[in-house]
C-alpha cells in the first residue's frame, strides 16, 4: 500500500502492511486447527550427528523395493511390490533367496525368532512365515484386516510380544501380539489435531520403547509410548520460521542405538536424522541416481553391522551407508589356487560354501586380513582350517557361533563379530578383536586402535589388510 508523504522506499510495502498480508495469507491457507498444536523443534542436541559413509548400491534382483528388514544374522529382507517378490540378501548384499507371488508386498519385518511378517496390499493382510517360508498365520482376521498396510514395526523388547502396523488409509496404527491377536489401535480421525493422524506412512519402535509414527500429510513425526499415548512430535508444515516444508513426504522411519531418528523423505530424496527430541542432526543422500543418491527413499533399516539400508524405490536399488562405527563384510571371490583349506579332499574352489557370485570370498579362502591362500601354498595358517566355518557366505541363515566372521579370520579367538550386534563405538574397534591375527573384519572406522583387517579405512593404522601382502611367509 502506498503511503503518501513517506519519501523513503516508496516502492516497498511498509513492513507492517506486508506482515499483515502475510498473516492474512497464512490464516487463509492454514486450517484453523493447525494453529492449535505446533510440534516443537529447536534447541541443542546431546548426541552427536551420525557420521555416514556411502558403501554401495545393491540392485541385483530388485525392481521397485519399498520396504526392508534385517535380522540378527545380518540378512536383509526386501519387499519389492514392483515384482511381487521378497528378495532375501545376505550381509554381502548378494541374493540368497527370492520368494515370488506375494501379491503387492507393502511392508516387512522380522522378529527375533526369524519369523517374517509381510503385508500384502492386495488382500489387505499381514502374513507371517517361518524361516522355511511356510505360512503360519495372518494378523487379526486375515484378509481385509487392513486397507493400506504400509509399515510394520516389531518391538525389539521381545518380552512385550508386540507388533505395530501402520494403515495409511485408515489413519491408524494397529497393534497385535506376535501370535496375531489384535490388541488395540491408536488414533482414529484424520486431521491435524493432537493424536490424529493424516496418513500414517511409517512406524518404528525404538530401543527405548518409543513408538515413532510418520504422520505424512501433517508433515510431522509423532512419538508415542508402547500403549499409544502421545508423548511429543516434531515437524510441521506450518512450522515456525518459514513456509518451506521440513518434510516432503515422510515414507520411512528407523532409529539407532543412540535413539537418533532417521526419517526417509521420499519427496526430497534424502534421509533426515534427528535426535530423540527432534533436533535435526544430519541429512543423508540427496535426490538423484548417482551412487549414494536416492529416488523415493522409503524403507529404512539398520543392520547388525550398523549399516543403514535404504530402499530407494525409483532407482530400483537399496543404498547402503555405514553409520559411525560399522563393519562392512565384503565378499572377496576365491582365488583360484586349488588349495584345499578345509581339508575336504577337493580344491576349495569347489567347496559348496563358495559363493558363486563374483565379488566376495569364500569362507574357505582367506579374506584379505590374512594370508591369501594363493599367496602361499605352504602357509597353512588358514584361519578356517579346523574352526567352524562361517556359513555366512550364502547359506541361510548363517548361524555364526564360531570364530569366523563374514570375511574375516577366525584365528582361534573366541569372540566372534557375528554375535556383536552393537559395534563398540566406545573403543572404536570391534569386540571380536582376536588373538592378534587380524580378527576384525571389514572397515572399522574411527579411532580403531586394534588390529584392523579387511578393507580398513584410512584411520586404521595397523595391520591393515593392504599391508598383508608383506605377511606372506613366502
Amino acid at each position, binding site marked *: 500500500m502506498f503511503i503518501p508523504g513517506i519519501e523513503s522506499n516508496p*516502492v516497498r510495502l511498509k513492513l507492517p502492511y506486508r506482515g499483515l*498480508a502475510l498473516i492474512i495469507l497464512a490464516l487463509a491457507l492454514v486450517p484453523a486447527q493447525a494453529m492449535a498444536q505446533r510440534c516443537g523443534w529447536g534447541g541443542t542436541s546431546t548426541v552427536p550427528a551420525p557420521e555416514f559413509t556411502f558403501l554401495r548400491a545393491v540392485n541385483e534382483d530388485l525392481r*521397485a523395493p519399498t520396504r526392508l528388514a534385517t535380522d540378527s544374522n545380518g540378512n536383509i529382507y526386501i519387499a519389492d511390490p514392483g515384482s511381487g517378490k521378497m528378495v532375501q540378501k545376505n550381509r554381502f548384499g548378494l541374493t540368497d533367496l527370492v520368494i515370488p507371488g506375494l501379491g503387492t508386498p507393502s511392508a516387512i519385518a522380522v522378529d527375533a525368532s526369524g519369523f517374517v511378517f509381510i503385508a500384502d496390499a492386495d488382500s489387505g493382510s499381514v502374513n507371517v512365515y517361518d524361516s522355511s517360508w511356510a505360512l503360519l498365520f495372518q494378523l487379526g482376521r486375515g484378509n481385509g484386516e487392513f486397507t493400506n498396510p504400509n509399515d510394520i514395526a516389531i518391538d525389539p523388547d521381545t518380552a512385550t510380544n508386540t507388533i505395530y502396523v501402520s494403515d495409511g488409509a485408515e489413519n491408524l496404527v494397529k497393534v497385535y501380539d506376535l501370535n496375531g491377536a489384535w490388541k488395540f489401535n491408536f488414533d482414529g480421525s484424520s486431521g491435524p489435531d493432537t493424536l490424529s493422524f493424516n496418513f500414517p506412512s511409517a512406524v518404528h519402535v525404538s530401543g527405548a520403547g518409543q513408538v515413532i509414527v510418520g504422520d505424512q*500429510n501433517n508433515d510431522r513425526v509423532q512419538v508415542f509410548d508402547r500403549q499409544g499415548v502421545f508423548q511429543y512430535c516434531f515437524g510441521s508444515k506450518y512450522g515456525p520460521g518459514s*513456509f518451506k516444508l521440513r518434510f516432503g513426504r515422510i*515414507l520411512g522411519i528407523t532409529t539407532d542405538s543412540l535413539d537418533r531418528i532417521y526419517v526417509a523423505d521420499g519427496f*526430497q530424496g534424502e534421509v533426515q536424522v534427528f535426535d530423540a527430541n527432534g533436533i535435526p542432526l544430519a541429512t543423508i543422500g540427496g535426490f538423484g541416481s548417482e551412487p549414494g543418491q536416492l529416488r523415493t527413499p522409503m524403507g529404512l533399516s539398520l543392520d547388525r553391522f550398523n549399516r543403514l539400508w535404504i530402499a530407494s*524405490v525409483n532407482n530400483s536399488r537399496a543404498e547402503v551407508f555405514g553409520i559411525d562405527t560399522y563393519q562392512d563384510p565384503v565378499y572377496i571371490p576365491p582365488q583360484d589356487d586349488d588349495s584345499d583349506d578345509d581339508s575336504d579332499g577337493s580344491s576349495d574352489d569347489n567347496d559348496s560354501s563358495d559363493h558363486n557370485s563374483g565379488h566376495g570370498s569364500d569362507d574357505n579362502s582367506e579374506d584379505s586380513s590374512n594370508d591369501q591362500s594363493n599367496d602361499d601354498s605352504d602357509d597353512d595358517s588358514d584361519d578356517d582350517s579346523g574352526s567352524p566355518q562361517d556359513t555366512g557366505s550364502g547359506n541361510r541363515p548363517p548361524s555364526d557361533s564360531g570364530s569366523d566372521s563374514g570375511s574375516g579370520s577366525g584365528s582361534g579367538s573366541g569372540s566372534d563379530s557375528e554375535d556383536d550386534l552393537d559395534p563398540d563405538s566406545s573403543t572404536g574397534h570391534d569386540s571380536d578383536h582376536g588373538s592378534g591375527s587380524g580378527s576384525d573384519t571389514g572397515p572399522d572406522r574411527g579411532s580403531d586402535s586394534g588390529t584392523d583387517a579387511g578393507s580398513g579405512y584410512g584411520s586404521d593404522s595397523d595391520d591393515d589388510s593392504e599391508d598383508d601382502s608383506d605377511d606372506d611367509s613366502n
Partner: protein
Amino acid sequence: MFKKTNILLMILTALALTNQALALDPPHNSSNSIECVTCHTLHSAPGGTLTAVAGNANLCQSCHVVGGTATGKPFVEADQARPGLALPAGMSASGTSHRWDAGPQGRIEADGANTSAGTIVSSGAFTGPNIQTYTILITLPGDTGVAEFEWYLELKGSGAPTGPDGTGITGTSVPLGDGLALNFSDGITSPSFVAGDTWYLYVIPDIVLPTDPEMAVRMEGDVLMCSTCHDQHSQKMTPFDPTAPAYAGAGTGQGRHNQRIDNDLGQKCKDCHSARDVNSSSLGSHPVGIAIPVSGDFQSPTGLPLDASGNISCLTCHDPHYNGADNGLLLRINDIQTLCTECHTLASGVASHFNTSAAEMWPGGQYGSSYPAITDTGKTASCANCHYPHGWPDSANPTTDSPLLAVDFEESQCYTCHDGNPAATDIRAEFQKTSVHPVAATAAIHSPGEGAIVNSGTRHIECADCHNPHEAEVSVGAPGPSTSPRPANGPLTGTAGINAAGSPVATAAFEYEVCFRCHADSTGKPAALTQRLYPETNVRVEFTNKTSYHPVTKTGANTGNGDVPSLINGWAENSIVSCTNCHNSDNGPAAGGGGPNGAHGSSWPNLLERRYVTSDPSTYSAAKYASCFSCHDAANILSDDNNSFGEHDKHIRGEDAACNVCHDPHASDNDRLINFDTSVVSSSGGMGISFNWNSPGSGSCTLSCHGKRHKNKSY
C-alpha cells in the same frame, strides 16, 4: 511501481480471503487431503513451478508408490516401457507403462556393471528409418574431453557386430548421425568414464516433439514428463474411455484420468507419434481414425475398444499404463494373433502360415530386409512374422516403408523362408533358373485388390498372384494322370482365377483357372513362341474351343475311341491333363527330383518339366522330346504300324523333324493337334498348307517342308 512479490502477495491474499483459490478436481484435492502446499512451496523451491524437488516424475512418485497415498496407482521407474525389437542380444524387454522420460532423442541406459561416475544424455531428434540401439563403449578412460568411445549398431538376432560403426571423443553434443548427439557429463569421481563401460541408446523412428501448446510447454528439455500428458489439477479434458464419468464443473470428474488435452480420439498419442497418424497402410503404418471396413475380411472387434466416433484409434490396440504383459509393447491383447484377428478375419485356420504346430518363425531378413529374426515362440504362425504394424523400412528404398506393412518386399519376403530354410523346399532356387515366371521383372505393380485378370499396362507376376499367403496350404504333391481337372488346392488355395467360360472367380476351383489370369484373355501377352498356321495365344480358347486339344478343362475328343494308341504311364483317352503336368520344375517330384512341385522355374525353356526341342532340323534322340514321351510311347509313335500315323519315323528320324513342327502342344483348329510351324512348313506352290484328316490312320497333307512338296499327299 510495486515489487512483483508484493503484488503476488496482494493477489494471493485477496484470493484467499474470497476463498476462490484454484479449484482442484479429485483426486488431487481435499478429498485426499491434498492442498496447494502439499506439492508447492512458496520460497526457495528447488523444483519448477514452485514444487519441492527437481523432477516432475519424482513429485508424482512420492505419492504414487505402493504404501503411499496413491498406493493403488503406483508408478515406478522400472515400469517404463523397454520394448524388445532391436534391443541388443542378451537384453530382455520389459515395461508396463508408456515412458515418462522419453523424447525424439531416444532413451539411454547404462549397463548394470558400469562403474563410471559420468553420465551420458542424448539430444536431437532421431531421423533414421529403423528402430535400433546404439551401443556406446568407452575405449579410453578419462573425463569429458579426454575419454574416447566407440559405438555400434546391432539389431537383435543379427549376430555380433563386426566393428565399430563410429568413434569419437567425449564431450558435449558429439554427433552420432541420424539427427542424434551425445552429451557427456563428468561425475563426482575421476576418471568419470571407465574403459569398458557401456551405454545403450535406444531410438525409434516416428517421434517428434509435441505441437499442442499445452503439451509442448511442459517438456523437460525435450523430454516428456508426467505433466505433459496429465493435468494434475483438472479433470476437464475428455478421456478416450467413453464410459468415463462426465465432467460437471470444478471439483468433479474423478475417473477421467486427468487429461492434459482432449484425448477421445487419441489426440495425445498422435501429437508425438504424428507419423503414425495415417488413415491408410499405404502411408506406412496401420491406419487409425477410420471405420472398420465392411467386407468379408473384417469384423468389428469385441475385445478392443473403438474411439468415440467408432473408429480404430491408437488406443484401440494400446493402453499406456499397467500393461499385464510387461514387455514394453503396451498392447491390450498380448497374443499377436488374437489381437490382429479381432478385426482381420483373413487368417484361415488350416493355412500353412497359421499352422502353429509347424512352429515357423521369421528367420530374420536375408534379401534386403532388416527385420530381425523372431525368437518369441508365442509368435509362431502369427501375423507378426510377415507384418509389422507400424511399417518397416523398404530395404531398397529406406525412406519409405515396405507396402502392406510387410517386413520385406514382394518375392524377397517369401524367399526369406522359402529358400530351403526354414521351409522344406528351396523355391528361390527355382527362380534362378533360365526359364521362370519372372517375379523379379516387376516391382510395386501387384496389388492385393487387383482383379482376377491381369492386363497390359499392369502385366506382372509375383508370388502372391498364384499363392494367397493367408490361405495357401501344404503341397499336395506332384500332378499325375487324373480324370478331373487338378483342383486349386494346397498352395493354390484361395487364389482368384478366370474360369473356363472366361469369367473371373474370386476363388479358383481348378489349377488352370489360376493360369488363365495371365495366359488366357489378358491383353498385352507376349508373342507366341512358335509361328503357327492357326495362331492362338489365348490358352483358355485353346483348351475350350478348338478342334483338337490336350484335355485340360474338359475331356479329350478321342475319349473312348481308341484313337490315341501311344498313351502310357497311366494316361488314357479320358485323362485330364493339368498345366503343371507339362510346365513344372525340372527337378520336382514328378521329374524324379527333390525340388519343389510347381511352375516356378525350370532349366528347360518354356518352364517345361522336361525337354522339348522345337528347332528344326534336329537329329532325333528320345531325350529331345522327353516332354511328349512322358505320356506318349516313343516306340509306338515311331513304329510304322502306328495306327494314327505310320510315317512318324520317316519324318522324325528320317527327316530330323521336331514334334513341334507339325503339332501344337496345346490345341489346334485342325485335327490331331496338327498346327504347322510356319517358319519351317511353307505353302506348297499356290496350294497353300493344309491337313485333312479322314479317319484314324488316314489323311492327307498339302505343304512344302525341307524342300519336299506334298500335294494332297495321303497316308
